[in-house]
């Protein structure tokens, strides 16, 4: 049987991807951020998951405003890095486990989560920056990836509660897959940031650190929060944190934090990262 062995959350700031691609990771501004992920890179290289379900959002790369799907599951065999205006990031093509993704799709829809299934899409920094942070710069990604894209660009995104419950349905879907697969789930985006309007630059370290505490101990409280509270407290774009609840919902009630890291700033954003053992 397939099972979820761990959950990982991380910000997916585009400037972090650029720093990696341009070889700036040792510069004083960036070094503390990359040092924050060293432990996790070693850990995941030893853990060797077979598949990662990667929860992220597209940033006007694969999806225009012609259609705004709330939850997208990528069911293609592979996904190319998107050209976000500066040429595609020099990272490997993302390979799916399409049989597993098809099983997830079927299980989730029959479990009343009406996913939009996508057989052709490019993946942008929302997906590739977490991959680079966790796996470095290999020629091929050492893991299969099922992309799960969430609408957080157009209000309203799904509620925090809906995200948390989707995580629970993902767990049921994974555990009903007959093959032995070691699965991890990543929740990405956040932490506090606002990158538009006169209130741009908002950072709320107190909120973020409390969020990290509650993510481990009492995610129910996070699932109960409204969009308005997230946007007000951690920035209009900080509402991305609801995607971390999909990851958390897929894990046991009790999890063990293995690694936690927080840093301000990366460009306009607070960087947060946590690794949760699901043993």
């Amino acid at each position, binding site marked *: 049987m397939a099972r979820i062995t761990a959950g990982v959350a991380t910000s997916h700031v*585009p*400037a972090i991807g650029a720093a990696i691609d341009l070889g700036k990771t040792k510069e004083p501004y960036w070094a503390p951020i990359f040092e924050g992920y060293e432990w996790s890179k070693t850990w995941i290289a030893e853990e060797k998951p077979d598949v990662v379900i990667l929860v992220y959002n597209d*940033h*006007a*790369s694969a999806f*225009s*405003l012609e259609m*705004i799907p709330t939850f997208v599951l990528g069911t293609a065999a592979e996904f190319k890095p998107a*050209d*976000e*205006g*500066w040429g595609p990031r020099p990272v490997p093509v993302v390979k799916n486990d399409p049989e597993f993704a098809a099983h997830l799709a079927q299980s989730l829809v029959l479990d009343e989560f009406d996913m939009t299934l996508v057989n052709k899409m490019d993946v942008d920094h929302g997906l590739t920056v977490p991959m680079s942070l966790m796996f470095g710069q290999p020629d091929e990604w050492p893991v299969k990836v099922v992309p799960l894209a969430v609408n957080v*660009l*157009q*209000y*309203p995104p799904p509620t925090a509660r809906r995200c948390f419950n989707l995580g629970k349905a993902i767990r049921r879907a994974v555990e009903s897959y007959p093959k032995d697969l070691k699965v991890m789930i990543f929740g990405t985006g956040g932490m*506090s940031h*606002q*990158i*538009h*309007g*006169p*209130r*741009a*630059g*908002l*950072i*709320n*370290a107190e*909120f973020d650190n409390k969020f990290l505490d509650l993510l481990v101990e009492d995610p129910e409280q996070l699932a109960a929060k409204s969009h*308005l509270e997230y*946007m*007000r*407290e951690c920035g*209009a*774009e900080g509402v991305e944190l609801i995607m971390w609840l999909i990851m958390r919902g897929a894990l046991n009630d009790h999890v063990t934090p293995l690694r936690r890291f927080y840093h*301000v*700033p990366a*460009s*306009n954003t*607070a960087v947060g990262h946590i690794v949760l053992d699901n043993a």
Partner: protein
Amino acid sequence: MAEDYDIPGTYVFDADASRRGFWLNQFAMSLMKPENRERFKADERAYLAEWQMTDEQREAVIARDYNRMLELGGNIFFVSKIGANDGKSFQFLAATMTGMTQPDYAEMMLKGGRSPVGARTKEEWEMHRG
């Protein structure tokens, strides 16, 4: 009818904004393609005329007035592609929207960013800004 979300200094991009800003955002997204970037650079007004945008939206683009673009239905993840096309960093765009210089804005971020104190509701935002 536009909703009022009571978050200051923020343009909540909802379905109403998405409809109003549809062509502005589609234009901005078109700049992901190198050939479109070249055409826009060569003659901005001519390229903008090809899109079904309002004159106000076109003027906001020409002026690189990002807050105005957002007010007219722009979404930051779309209109920021105009800035990328200009060779500007995201931090530059963010700074211009706050009315700060880029060095001042960068300094604010290095010091921990903008505090949420006084920035949670429109009423307290007005009080703090006098």
